[in-house]
């Protein structure tokens, strides 16, 4: 098992390098230079000053030299310095991870808690009125543009009713509040962003669950269980559900990179200091080191997520054997 994992990991390294190479070319092909935003069309910025900036950032070098330099630093886990404010790229990313993870985990948990039952009910009551109602509801959640819902809800709950704050993740002057009050304060700030994130993702997971469940219900062993006269509830919730959940594990693995991806739109509207916004602004400012740092992080997570999904699937599904060498226990 260990050897398998190691082998899989090593096999993904060329892929990672390929990704960075393509990213490097794509972002450098995009017109515009990082010095532009920094100097903001300020007539007091002299021509010489801009040349100087470009030299300092090594932008006067050929592209392959820049890429080689970047790659050789990356090997030492040095992501470089952001063009926008001269801070370490790694610092800029790390400081935004907690809030991003917090919000995406919260959303993910809620999505699963809500979507799985919906999927099961839809499958068990296949084609019933309830199934159809739920289907339409989750699709409405998916079909409504997220920022549109966000702004409408903000207008209603924050401005008209005054129940929720407009933006940010906590209020000012709450430092001396009790822990409970602070938790409530943060909670109020994240209600809308989490709702918007959740409502858009329900459709995918619940439909997947529905399909998976329908699949299982038609299997022979379920028919057998029914034929044996087991109570319907037991058949569904003990035998069918357990097996139908297997493919969902894959989805969990695949949502790993998404956890740190952040959501540009939601973060912009709700003023949340997350990673999505950071990378978006990085692209807009042609902050090459920052964008590359984000892409490497995303690629590593995607590759890891894929690997995890494969492994997890193998672990829970005995029918799948890994490389034919070992049969994982269970």
């Amino acid at each position, binding site marked *: 098992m260990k050897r398998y994992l190691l082998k899989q990991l090593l096999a993904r390294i060329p892929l990672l390098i390929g990704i960075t190479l393509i990213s490097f070319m794509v972002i450098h092909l995009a017109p515009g230079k990082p010095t532009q935003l920094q100097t903001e069309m*300020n007539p*007091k910025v002299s021509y010489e*000053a801009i040349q100087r900036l470009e030299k300092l950032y090594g932008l006067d070098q050929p592209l392959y030299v820049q890429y080689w330099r970047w790659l050789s630093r990356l090997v030492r886990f040095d992501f470089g310095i952001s063009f926008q404010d001269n801070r370490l790229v790694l610092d800029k990313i790390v400081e935004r991870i907690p809030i991003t993870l917090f919000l995406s985990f919260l959303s993910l948990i809620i999505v699963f808690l809500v979507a799985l039952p919906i999927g099961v009910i839809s499958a068990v009551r296949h084609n019933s009125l309830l199934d159809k109602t739920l289907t339409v509801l989750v699709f409405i959640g998916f079909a409504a543009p997220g920022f549109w819902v966000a702004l409408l809800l903000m207008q209603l709950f924050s401005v008209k009713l005054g129940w929720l704050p407009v933006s940010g993740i906590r209020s000012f002057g709450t430092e001396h509040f009790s822990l409970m009050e602070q938790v409530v304060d943060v909670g109020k700030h994240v209600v809308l962003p989490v709702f918007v994130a959740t409502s858009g993702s329900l459709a995918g997971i619940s439909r997947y669950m529905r399909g998976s469940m329908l699949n299982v219900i038609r299997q022979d062993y379920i028919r057998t269980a029914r034929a044996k006269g087991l109570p319907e509830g037991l058949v569904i919730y003990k035998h069918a559900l357990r097996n139908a959940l297997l493919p969902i594990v894959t989805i969990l693995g695949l949502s790993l990179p998404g956890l740190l991806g952040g959501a540009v739109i939601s973060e912009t509207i709700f003023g949340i200091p997350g990673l999505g916004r950071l990378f978006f602004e990085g692209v807009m400012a042609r902050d090459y080191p920052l964008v590359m740092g984000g892409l490497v992080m995303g690629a590593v997570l995607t590759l890891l997520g894929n690997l995890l999904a494969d492994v997890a699937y193998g672990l829970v599904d005995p029918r799948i054997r890994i490389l034919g060498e070992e049969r994982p226990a269970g």
Partner: protein
Amino acid sequence: MQHPPLPNSAPFFFLKPLQILFFSLFFLSGCGGADLPEEKQFSADPIPVTGDRFITGSIAEPKNLIPILASDGASATIVGQVFNGLVKYDANIELTGDLAERWEVSEDGLEITFHLRKNVRWHDGYPFTSEDVLFTYQKLIDPKVPTPYSGDFERVKDVEIVDSHTVKVTYKEPFSPGLASWGMAVMPKHLLENEDLTNTPFSRNPIGTGPYRFKEWKTAQYVELEVNPDYFEGRPYIDGYLDRVIPDQSTLFLELRVEGVDSLNLTPLQYQRQTGSPFFKETYQRFRYPSFSYAYIGYNLADPRFKDLRVRKALTMGLNRQAIIDGILFGLGRESTGPFVPTSWAYNPKVSPLPYDPDEAKRLLAEAGWEDHDGDGWLDKEGERFEFTLITNQGNEQRKMIAELAQRQWEKLGIRVKIWIIEWTAFISQFIDQKKFEAFILGWGLGRDPDLYDIWHSSKTRAGEFNFIQYHNEAVDQLIEEGRRTFDQEKRKAIYHRLHWMIYEDQPCTFLYVPDALPIFHARFKGIELAPLGVGHNFIKWYVPKHQQKYLTQ
């Protein structure tokens, strides 16, 4: 003509870094107005008291709080509260001493001697001396420091320490805009001399001499300042200053509605349609005064079509600029007649705007050879249709609407216009800098000194320089140079009045309008004073009466 951040005089109300072009650091007023809340402003609480906190919001996060590296609006605003320069503009836009008590300019204009204030201390208690001034100058001209502000200081021949509180600056040639350039914030030598300015914690933890001390910076959330009780001009009344980062324009306005921020620079639409309710009238005070900026449509003067003065004149006359002001600015601005704004001493009031006259415009175009020869509804000349692309940057609603209006009106002259709205970085580097444009919409935020060299002198046309429309007029060049050498105010005034007239006669671009600055403040802040410089100049005198204080501090 954006100046380096001048401490204290800089108001803190930015819309967006991009709009630095429209709303310069310094707002100016000649005739302005204020909408004070219904509750009478000056009756209660005649004696100012300390306390409370001022919360403002910006779309972009500050990038770097080292004064000579702070080139974005959000950073400049914070720097303005934490640092001081040697000189600053006072409420009436006269240069006055800041860290310098007084100064002398030599007869030939080549030497300035600054006498510094004594007993000024940095926020860490270390005394401020001439050494700090010399240090700041050295960093400004250091090729290893990526400062965008070196331009004005490259004309300095030498900076010399006379004694601990006297500094003598010598110029290579007489340079009248030089004095104002010393508004550049001074940095503490004792903290930075052994630091690499491009990589120092100081950029996120600045120590200055200003009315507010840096307290905390929560990335992408806020920058917090606290009062400097030992400020040399006296302790500011308001205890705290907080700049929230709220990246979305609409969200920022909603925050104002729920009193989550205390101030905002309103758009004309917000001023006219969205802040007139009884709630706003009671809770906020609005101000209105002409800004020190203008918007224009620039043409590529290297393009043979736009080389023809008649064509440029026709484009201006075929565009109803008053309709733009009435329709898009809701009347909150005035027509621009050249490179100066009406509230500047350099402005020549005798220059009057070209009238809106589509018939005359058509006649001028016909005279230039542009007529509809083939009867397809569009003008043509030598078989080529009059067709061009008008570009502007993304993220500015007003410019987009101007583009759509211009497209419509020029279409009626028989000119076909395409619009391209391009993301800022690509817009500047790919189109403006490379001169790959036919026409564009932009604005200039102006400094207080009327020097036109950087924008209108024919030598400033390299990539990244600012005469990108490639305007070239020998006589104008000479006058611009003369203006920089002249120290006598009356003579300078005559020079710039003439320049104003000459440039408008040339119509190198279509001057559109000078927008009004429209800041709004929470009504609990008292002592706000509208002056020619704008409203931020006396921030340290603002206060909140005890019973209205909202935030507990300390």
